[in-house]
């Protein structure tokens, strides 16, 4: 009788874990993740110079970047995002110093962060990207994912625009493939990014960033950005625009 009871309980436990916890197949990426400076970059931006290769851009894009840099050197303010607290597009928070978190279940994985941006939704239910005519461009794009063994593969299209580490650019035709994998016995999360877009790149722009699992009990902060606060402009005093 006792043996029968033990087998029954074990079976119920197995069912509860496999079916409801769905942990037997899908790796658990949930929790907070944060960047560390392992390479002596000196700043979170400086780390990229050491670990992210320069994007190989088309000649016309290089020329456009050169003209923008020249305008900036001459005193033009070429970007007002910080002053106006404009929405930060993906992958900004993946480069930021603040921790971000993954919340996951069988149908969806969400990346949640602290900055003034939208949460990122990765649909895991097998849906395809919408047809191009129905795709609403967004700051995070449209992301679908699946597991290949222990790796989460995420495919994203439908960006509005933006920039990547290494000098890459993001536009409406950009395609991003990411591979998320827990490494170092669960202590770190490695994310390999591959950006491709015939409008910008000579060849796909690929790099890997690593994130450390945050301490247990980590909780989210809330970042504020007040565009009406004169201090938000910092040292930027917009010169007369030509």
């Amino acid at each position: 009788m006792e043996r029968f009871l033990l087998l029954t309980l074990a079976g119920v436990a197995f069912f509860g874990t496999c079916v409801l916890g769905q942990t037997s197949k899908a790796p658990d990426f949930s929790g907070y993740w944060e960047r560390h400076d392992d390479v002596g970059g000196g700043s979170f931006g400086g780390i990229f110079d050491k670990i992210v290769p320069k994007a190989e851009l088309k000649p016309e894009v290089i020329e456009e970047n050169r003209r923008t840099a020249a305008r900036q050197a001459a005193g033009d303010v070429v970007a007002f995002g910080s002053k106006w607290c404009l929405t930060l597009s993906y992958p900004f928070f993946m480069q930021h110093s603040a921790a971000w978190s993954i919340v996951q279940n069988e149908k969806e994985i969400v990346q949640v962060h602290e900055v003034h941006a939208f949460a990122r939704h990765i649909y895991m239910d097998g849906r395809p990207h919408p047809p191009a005519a129905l795709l609403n461009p967004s700051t995070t794009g449209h992301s679908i994912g699946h597991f290949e063994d222990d790796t989460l593969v995420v495919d994203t299209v439908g960006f509005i625009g933006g920039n990547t580490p290494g000098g890459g650019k993001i536009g409406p035709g950009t395609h991003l493939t990411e591979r998320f994998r827990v490494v170092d016995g669960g202590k770190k999360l490695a994310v390999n990014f591959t950006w491709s877009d015939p409008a910008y790149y000579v060849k796909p722009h690929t790099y890997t960033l690593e994130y450390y699992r945050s301490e247990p009990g980590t909780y989210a902060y809330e970042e504020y950005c007040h565009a009406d606060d004169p201090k938000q402009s910092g040292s930027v005093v917009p010169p007369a625009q030509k």
Partner: protein
Amino acid sequence: MTMKPLLLLVAAPLAFAQTPDISGFWELHFDSRNVPEASLTPDAAKMVREQRAHDAHAIRWCYNFGVPFLMGMTPFDVIQNSSGKEVAITFPYRGPSRHVYTDGRKHVNPDVFDPSSSGDSVGHWEGNTLVVDTIGFSDEGIIGIPGGGQRSSTSHLVERYRLVKGGQQLSVTFTWEDPKVFTKPHTYEFRYFRAPKGTEAREYDCNASDEERAKFLTGPPGQ
């Protein structure tokens, strides 16, 4: 042989197994709100004009909106982590999502917690009901509370989430307590409808540099 360890092994997944799944996109309909008038303290009653001006300023300048305003902005997405440790709620408006920690932790020590527009939320299940307890609010964002009153640093919010109508609706009762604002606890209920299959997250952006928008929000109507 003692069976206690095995029973404990079984109990954990079973406890999780009994947790209803409230994940998915939810939206409010025209008949989704049951909001009685709040019973305000005399001081709070005098603050209505200031509160409206405060909230209008937050909208004009795209501040973090916060709770309870965001709970009225749908469709929002509830993501119940498979581990049972957290429930997140994300909104079609930019800014911090809500984190409801269901891993048994207590509130962060208020002496070290940096107050925020959504506060510090911890949750637990009572049968089929997710009970969410939130403190640690700031005056950031939109502070008006449905039915009257405003959130403040002394606000305490208890929400009770439960599926109704065979899982097609999500009932959330909100109970606010704040001795500075309410003479008695203020309770109201929203019933969210499960969004159609295939519903996806939207991004309704906010651009404080848009002069036309600023003129519309702050100028006389019809200009």
